[in-house]
């Protein structure tokens, strides 16, 4: 029902095409991959926001917005992501499929690709007003990261756990650095990024891969010839730091406490054990039949959510739960207890349930162009060529022993508690 094609348009420009007739929309994205630890991180984060308002062909923000609305409300959003120790910056676009447009409209995909290339590759010189306005907006976004306590607790936990690693950096940049960026510096940075960063394109929609490749090759012609490309590195993850748990408590003026426990797994998507780690995560805290959901929530009634998630390019895992302050010792003890139990062995039944659940979620991604975009852009940034189907196939071969072995590799490193100090 769908077909995945991977190709290189030219040196340093990769393209992944998922051809499907199922979706009523198509998705197009362009991502530049940069090392997260690089000095220009704050400038790189600001780039897509400034580029969106600096195109020669569509000067100003409203010209772009009007063009998008004329493309039936197409979306073209600046994006900044952290994937392992890479910072991805670029644009994600989606537009309705050609067959729903009125006759004589011309190609919606071509229109979107042309707009994307106009923003990314053909900027006018950056004006001071745009740069300072977008810098302020970005600073406001960075400052508002703590507003969402659930994700903030996990972020803070990783910042403590990985304090010595590039991973602790904020992908959106640092407020002081963002504020200090001048239009000239940003323009110079743009030219250096465009000269050295690998560019990955992704398309999902009804058009054949050859047609897409042909149109994107034309749209990307404005990209200069590049001599030296700098790829982000995905080094072997750091080993656990001794046997002592790092404990950190911080306070925020909120009602509910947030517990985040960081673990080092050392297993990334590059490893043979990766599918076993995926299933371990599902058994531990990834689904509503997981150990954490059944014990911390359903048996002990301590929380609304208790879940785990991994970063597949970093080899780390976070458990997070929202609880009463007073429940912290009990919740923490139960989470660590469940981990120890799983390290003694998981049951074949829970592995089967996890396998069905993970397989279903991965298959369901095929219906969602934006989920596929995220998956394949992350794969591409790390140089991974495995397709969704290949990953699903690997997951079918995992045994309960494999999952137990993966569980044993998960070593608790940092216990972070965001204590509610009253709203």
């Amino acid at each position, binding site marked *: 029902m769908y077909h995945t094609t991977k190709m290189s348009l030219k040196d340093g420009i990769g393209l992944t095409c998922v051809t499907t007739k199922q979706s009523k929309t198509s998705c197009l994205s362009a991502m530049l991959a940069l090392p997260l630890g690089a000095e220009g991180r704050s400038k790189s984060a600001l780039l897509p926001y400034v580029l969106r308002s600096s195109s020669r062909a569509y000067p100003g923000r409203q010209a772009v917005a*009007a063009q998008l609305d*004329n493309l039936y409300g197409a979306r073209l959003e600046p994006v900044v992501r952290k994937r392992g120790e890479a910072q991805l910056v670029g644009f994600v676009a989606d537009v309705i499929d050609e067959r729903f447009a009125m006759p004589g409209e011309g190609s919606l995909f071509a229109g979107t690709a042309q707009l994307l290339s106009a923003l990314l590759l053909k900027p006018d010189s950056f004006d001071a007003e745009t740069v300072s306005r977008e810098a302020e907006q970005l600073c406001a976004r960075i*400052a508002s990261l703590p*507003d969402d306590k659930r994700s903030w607790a996990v972020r803070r936990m990783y910042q403590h756990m990985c304090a010595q690693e590039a991973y602790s950096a904020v992908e959106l940049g640092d407020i002081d650095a963002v504020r200090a960026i001048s239009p000239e510096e940003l323009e110079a940075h743009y030219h250096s990024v465009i000269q050295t960063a690998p560019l990955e394109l992704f398309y999902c929609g009804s058009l054949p891969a050859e047609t897409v490749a042909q149109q994107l090759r034309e749209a990307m012609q404005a990209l200069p010839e590049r001599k030296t490309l700098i790829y982000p590195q995905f080094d072997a993850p750091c080993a656990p730091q001794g046997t002592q748990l790092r404990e950190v408590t911080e306070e925020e003026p909120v009602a509910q406490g947030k517990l985040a426990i960081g673990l080092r797994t050392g297993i990334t998507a590059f490893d043979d054990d990766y599918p076993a780690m995926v299933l371990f995560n599902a058994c531990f805290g990834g689904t509503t039949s997981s150990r954490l959901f059944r014990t911390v929530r359903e048996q002990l009634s*301590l929380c609304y959510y208790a879940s785990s998630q991994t970063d597949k390019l970093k080899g780390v895992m976070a458990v997070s739960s929202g609880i009463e302050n007073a429940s912290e010792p009990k919740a923490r003890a139960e989470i660590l207890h469940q981990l120890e139990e799983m390290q003694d062995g998981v049951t074949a039944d829970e592995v089967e349930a996890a396998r069905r659940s993970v397989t279903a*979620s991965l298959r*369901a991604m095929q219906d969602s162009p934006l989920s596929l975009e995220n998956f394949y852009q992350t794969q591409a940034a790390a140089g991974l060529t495995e397709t969704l189907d290949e990953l699903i196939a690997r997951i079918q071969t995992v045994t309960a022993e494999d999952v137990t072995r993966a569980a044993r590799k998960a070593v608790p490193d940092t216990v972070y508690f965001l204590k509610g100090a009253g709203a």
Partner: protein
Amino acid sequence: MTTISYPNLDDCIQTTVLDNGLHIYCVPRERGAKTFAMLAVNFGSVDCRFTLDGTKYDVTPGIAHFLEHKMFEEEDGNALQKFTALGAQPNAFTSHTMTAYHVTCTDRFYDCLEILLRFVTTPYFTDQNVAKEKGIIGQEIGMLDDTPSWQAYVGVLEGLYAVHPVHISVAGSKESIAPIDPQMLGVCHRAFYSPANLALIVCGQYDFDRVVEMAERITPKQSARIAARDYGAEPEQAALPYIERRMAVSRPMFILGCKDTVPEQPYARQLVGELAADCVCGKSSPLYDRLYGEGLIDRTFDPDYFTFPDGACAMFSGESRDPQAVRAALEAEMRRIAGGGLEDAVFTRMKKAAYGKYIRRTSDPAEVCRMQAEACFSGASCFDFAEVFGSVTKEDIVQRIRQWSADGMTSLTVIAPQKEGNA
């Protein structure tokens, strides 16, 4: 079976009504990977004053949502675990207007459908399982209490509505759920969970006759009488012009609500209202461009519209250093448009974008089911949007905006930072 085709949208709905009154709607997606099934109950948090078998009830806030949690509990276990054991992804939500239970699967659809039909129509409440849920929901409410966007939403509805129960938070409060017991839950289930008040909606791959056969076999043979609802006599104007709360936010968050008249055709009104809100300050509107340029709004700004039984309102939400200035600008723009100032180009562009947005929404089976649940409870179909956007006139839009710009129709809620100079 009746089939309604929408050739321009590449979709159709197969539908029937069982003898017990249950409505069934199925939307085939032969090429998709997942199948999504939803059993929606026409019972939301606003339905808290009702008459059943001659007795008047005024039930405690949050009970519809509490009931949603408790339905998963079955005499022989928990439906959540049964779904996940099959690899399916179950969930549920309660809104002001409905309670919906749903499941996503990529295989074993009929097993999932059987669980869904059974648990929603089979109450099983014990003192013990009700007490346990208070801990879990108490933490869910604690999480909402700390979520600024939710508090802004609750605030603006309080500001707009003096009498209508839409001003009460969907989940209630820790205090309001304290008295809930099995008997109260039983009354609500009897009042609203009869087949005639339910809709079964499926999108994906299925055999229609088999779906009907299962629904006939598993749901009760007869419907009880559905309770009569009472929303009170709501004044025409907003209850309070301004509400402010202080929370742990980095900068002020706001929602400006504009009270509208009670819609005769809620489905069409929802679409026209959304389009009108976009014409006031959608992304490509002149006002958006000006406010963005002045740094008064940012990318979080969002115009929206909300219809519910016996009411409707527009909402403009976002973050701003000066919400009062945004309010003044929005109100001035509404008056300008009410006086005949809506440009044809803006109207045409916004209409095209709104149509594209709905095409995009119907791409996802989960969204199709949710849209159909909302539409069918007000006597429409989720694919009627093409017809509504095809016939909507500029005067329809201006009429809405004129209503919002009348004296005393707006209410602003601001969630302000706790400390001055925290931005």
